[in-house]
């Protein structure tokens, strides 16, 4: 799983504590056991491993410059930013910009659109790769299986701009969708001018682009399910469906849980780029999400502080969601991201 590398990551204090503690305590890690006096050993490590630290330097500088400084830059959510004035804002205004954001009806429209779109995608989009992986797993003809995989992975490699272009092309007045509707005597619909069509179109295009690629990890997990369990289930009279339910799904549960936690964490950031490319003012009532709203008022109208406040609000919800999802999954099913 992509996320399991996170183990011992942000929440682990060992790496932080090492330098400050005087030492003497033992750890059961084989890698730190030989170093008893930690303070001295750090100096020694610096002398011994300076080349490693040099190798890490570009990446650390990159992280600081492009991840941590922008986090610090989010301070303008709490300070009044004037064009031409100080880049970190001119004076403290507390939660003024959050209150301002929450008092805008457009903000709440974007907020609920985000929740609905993210929720729909989670309910519909999350199980799709699992279902497709299960179906692919039943295919005995290897060549056919590989062919289906090759084709369904393909859309993953397209630029969002191209995908948006394809969506717009297929849904225009003379596009394929309207041609098909024409066979049933339906008059052409200009889909991208009707707010009620945005969500289905977005969900379908997202599914089209991601479902195949999403199966990779599940297919890998499926190969690790013990064959003997299937045999045992068959002997107990389990049919194919019951085998899937009682053997296959529990077998890939850790993968499902980890990917679910990751998905919940990105819930609030639903496909920003594609929404931005597909939306137009006529359909804002369903197609305007928090990211595009803050983009418009921030980059578009140079309302930096207000947009930063909205972005920070969004990031915090994302963080809270992923931390709680991880906590719940660790308590309930015992597998988690960290």
């Amino acid at each position, binding site marked *: *799983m*992509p996320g*399991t*590398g*996170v183990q*011992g*990551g*942000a929440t*682990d204090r060992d*790496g932080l504590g090492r330098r400050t503690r005087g030492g003497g305590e033992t750890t059961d890690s084989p890698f730190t056991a030989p170093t008893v006096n930690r303070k001295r050993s*750090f100096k020694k490590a610096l002398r011994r491993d300076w080349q*490693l*630290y040099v*190798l*890490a330097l570009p*990446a*650390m500088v990159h992280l600081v410059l*492009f*991840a941590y*400084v*922008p986090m*610090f830059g989010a301070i*303008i959510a709490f300070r009044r930013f004037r064009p031409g004035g100080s*880049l970190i804002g001119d004076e403290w205004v507390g939660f003024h910009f959050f209150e301002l954001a929450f008092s805008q009806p457009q903000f709440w429209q974007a907020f609920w659109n985000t929740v609905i779109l993210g929720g729909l995608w989670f309910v519909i989009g999350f199980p799709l790769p699992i279902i497709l992986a299960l179906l692919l797993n*039943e295919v005995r003809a290897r060549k056919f299986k590989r062919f*289906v995989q090759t084709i*369904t*992975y*393909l859309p993953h*490699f397209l*630029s*969002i*701009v*191209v995908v948006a*272009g*394809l969506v717009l*092309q297929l849904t225009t007045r*003379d596009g*394929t969708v*309207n041609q098909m509707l024409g066979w049933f005597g339906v008059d052409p619909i200009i889909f991208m001018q009707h707010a009620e069509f945005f969500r289905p179109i977005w969900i379908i295009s997202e599914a*089209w682009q991601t479902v*195949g690629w999403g199966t*990779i990890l599940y297919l890998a997990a499926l190969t690790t399910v013990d064959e003997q*369990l299937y045999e*045992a289930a*068959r002997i107990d009279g389990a*049919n194919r469906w019951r085998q899937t339910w009682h*053997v296959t799904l529990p077998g890939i549960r850790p*993968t499902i849980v980890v990917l679910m936690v990751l998905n919940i*964490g990105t819930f609030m950031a639903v496909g920003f*780029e594609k929404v931005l*490319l597909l939306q137009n003012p006529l359909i804002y009532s369903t197609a305007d999400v928090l*990211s595009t709203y803050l983009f418009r008022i*921030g*980059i578009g109208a140079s309302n930096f502080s207000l947009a*930063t406040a909205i*972005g920070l609000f969004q990031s915090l919800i*994302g*963080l809270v969601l992923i*931390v709680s999802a991880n906590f719940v999954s660790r308590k309930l099913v015992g597998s988690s991201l960290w």
Partner: protein
Amino acid sequence: MVTESVRPDIAGVRNSLTTVKDTRGTKVFRWFNYSFLTLLVVVTLYPFVNLIAMSFSSDGAIRAGRVNLWPVGFNTTTIRAVMGDPMFWINYRNTVFYTVLFTIIAMVITTCFAYVISRQHLPGRKLMIGMATFTMFFGGGLVPHFVVVGQWYGLRNTIWAVVLPGALSVFNLLVMKSFFENFPGELEEAASIDGLNTFGTFLRIVLPLSKALLATMTLFYAVTMWNAWFGSFLFLGDRNMHPVTMYLRNLIAGSLNTQEIADTADAAQVGANIQAVTMLLTVLPIMFVYPFVQKFFVSGVMLGSVKG
């Protein structure tokens, strides 16, 4: 879950019994499954086929809604018009240049860092891993990024605003880290006994043994930059600096005057399918290399899933 042991004497009988009982249902399921997957392939491919058909169809046929799988009123007017537009080629060349530059920078940063955080004895390792992974879950947001990168660092309207910010993908980093962690420790001991220092071991032992991984990661980064548009949209004002994805984006958003491109060709013809042609030319290199590189991508993702 069923875990009880199997009595060999009845196992065969009950097994064959259930097999017999299941046959009909299994057959129906298999028929359904193969049909469904075939349909899925058709649905996945249709937009591409439609794209090609549109690119070579006449304006009239497109507007009449008669173009599906096959070009109607075959012509190459638009494709010649787009390829005759100097801006298209400038943007295309930019894409190639940004992709190469970005991939080199990203690979150097990511590979070095991944190797360092894979060394389990190194003090501060967990802090470094923590700093990287935290950025996966929290960020300052779009506007601070825009202000900090564009204004504080003054990278606006420079290519650095496009090629630097994304040059450390934490996902790629963790994949590489878990790969390096699986190197046998004896290898490095042997190298140090032979008189190689850390740099030497890294460059002459570790990297040559990681060619497959390096190729995969290079592809990951290259495709990312080939497809990217948002960084340029945010930071590059000059159309001469845009990548081809921005050329396409401007077409879609209608802010590119098709008349400019069309002044040598039949204007109406070019207007109708210019988006299709540009999309086709944008995805062509990816479609072309895709069959050859696809398995690398898959192995890269699998590598990440083995265990962090």
